[in-house]
């Protein structure tokens, strides 16, 4: 769906590269945000990276519309796909940043056992998915895309289970509540990564579907 690199027009190629850069920055945001949540680390890079991702979304949209204005017949499905997935990448940045914001919203911390530990395990599984997403879309690699989508299905099940256990237990404490919220954010991060690579394997009308 995203087309071979050598056949792409200049602006579409530029848009493609920008999405890869945005994904890399979202990866960094995710790492920094997790350190802030779990270790109380401080970073002034987070906001800057998030702003860069937001600017990247704007740039991709501009590049695509400029391309379509001049060459409406060339790279049409790719253009529409890029506009669709760039929003997923932008959401990735937002959800990753939201993980860090939880630290300021509550005194509770993510425990190192129970639901908290299960969240930590899920987070560790998501980290390599960013690289897989970048490689999947830059190489138009169906295997990597399918692999990532399978990993997301697994994460979806794990995070749903954390949520169900957290809200279904009358004994849940504030740390468990924190784990429930974190698990929902982790699920969204994983889902948006899956949405991005779904553009490699799915037809245009099924982008973002992971059945």
């Amino acid at each position, binding site marked *: 769906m995203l087309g071979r690199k050598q056949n792409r027009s200049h602006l579409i190629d530029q848009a493609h590269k920008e999405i890869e850069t945005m994904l890399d920055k979202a990866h960094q945001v995710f790492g920094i945000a997790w350190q802030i949540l779990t270790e109380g680390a401080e970073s002034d890079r987070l906001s800057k990276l998030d702003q860069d991702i937001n600017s990247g979304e704007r740039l991709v949209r501009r590049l695509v*519309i400029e391309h379509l*204005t001049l*060459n409406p017949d060339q790279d049409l499905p790719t253009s529409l796909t890029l506009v669709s997935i760039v929003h997923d990448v932008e959401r990735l940045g937002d959800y990753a940043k939201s993980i860090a914001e939880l630290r300021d919203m509550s005194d509770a911390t993510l425990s190192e056992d129970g639901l908290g530990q299960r969240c930590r395990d899920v987070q560790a599984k998501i980290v390599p998915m960013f690289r897989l997403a970048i490689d999947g879309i830059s190489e138009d690699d169906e295997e990597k895309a399918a692999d990532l989508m399978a990993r997301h299905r697994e994460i979806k099940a794990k995070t749903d289970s954390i949520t169900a256990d957290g809200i279904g237990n009358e004994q849940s404490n504030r740390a468990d509540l924190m784990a429930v919220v974190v698990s929902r954010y982790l699920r969204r991060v994983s889902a948006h990564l899956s949405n991005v690579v779904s553009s490699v394997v799915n037809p245009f009308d099924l982008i973002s579907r992971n059945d």
Partner: protein
Amino acid sequence: MDTLKTIGQVLLLFGILYLFLVSIGLMGASFKMFGKGFATQLVETTTNPYVGLFVGILATTLVQSSSTTTSLVVGIVAAAGLTIPTAIPIIMGANIGTSVTNTLVSMGHITRPVEFRRALAGATVHDFFNLIAVVILFPLELFTGYLQHLASGAAGVFTGIGGMKLANPIKASVKPAVALVTDLLGDHPWLILLLALLMMYAALKFLVDLARGLVVSKAERFLHQYLFGAAGYAMLFGAILTVLVQSSSITTSLIIPLIGAGILTIEQIFPYTLGANVGTTVTAMLAALSTASVPAITIAFVHLIFNLSGILLVYPIAAIRRIPIRLAHGLATFTSKSRSLAIAYLIVVFYLLPLCVILIWR
């Protein structure tokens, strides 16, 4: 394979350009056959400069190409069918008429009010600039003849530095084809004139279509680089792109969707539009060179100097530069409340008003 295709397209481009130059030559040949009486009659018809101005507007809006009108005028001037003073208002009118195309393109956004308001403002800034330039420079020309003097001077310098050495081979290459057609059609000036007009229209249309295919797809990296940058670069980009595609209508219409989408502002596209106005003068210059006629070259310089004068008049001072931009915003805001007003503006300014003036004053 792509290289071979491009070579083929470039060769075709030169072939069509040759046909265009032949059409100018045929026009001259037909006028010679008509004789002096016909030329005098034609000059008398357009002696009134106001009529000439509106003839230029109407002719250009009908064919949607100022290059066609200006090349036609150049061809007739070369054949002594029009004098330079009578041709100047037609050239000015052609400048106004050419902006109808991007205004028409902006109508494509009519179903989305906000988008339409932006697109119409982006399109009509070209209209208002050309109208302001004519409102100031037309009377100035009537009273002082500055355009004619400057253009005659430029043509003099051009011939003085051996410009005709450039023009003569072009004329010589066109001559055999013109002679062949006139021999074939015999003593039928109307037939030759009709063929010349058809050939010129078709050649310019194909030339623009072909050049668009060759150039526009490759222009996208420059569009992003220069249109969002400094005004000088945007102006230069507008001029060069127009020279390459031989049509300011194409270059100015091309960016209307980007204005409609809010990607580009009127302030950003204004210098690009002005550059396109200058770039479009190259077609008349080519036509004039093929005639190797000093009056024809003079009228081509009139077109160039008129557009440069307009830029010098409006662009350097911010307060003046804002006038066409504010007028375009004002018109777009006003007509966005009732979009039929935008259609009325288009019909009245570009078609009805010129037609009425021509019918009343001729």
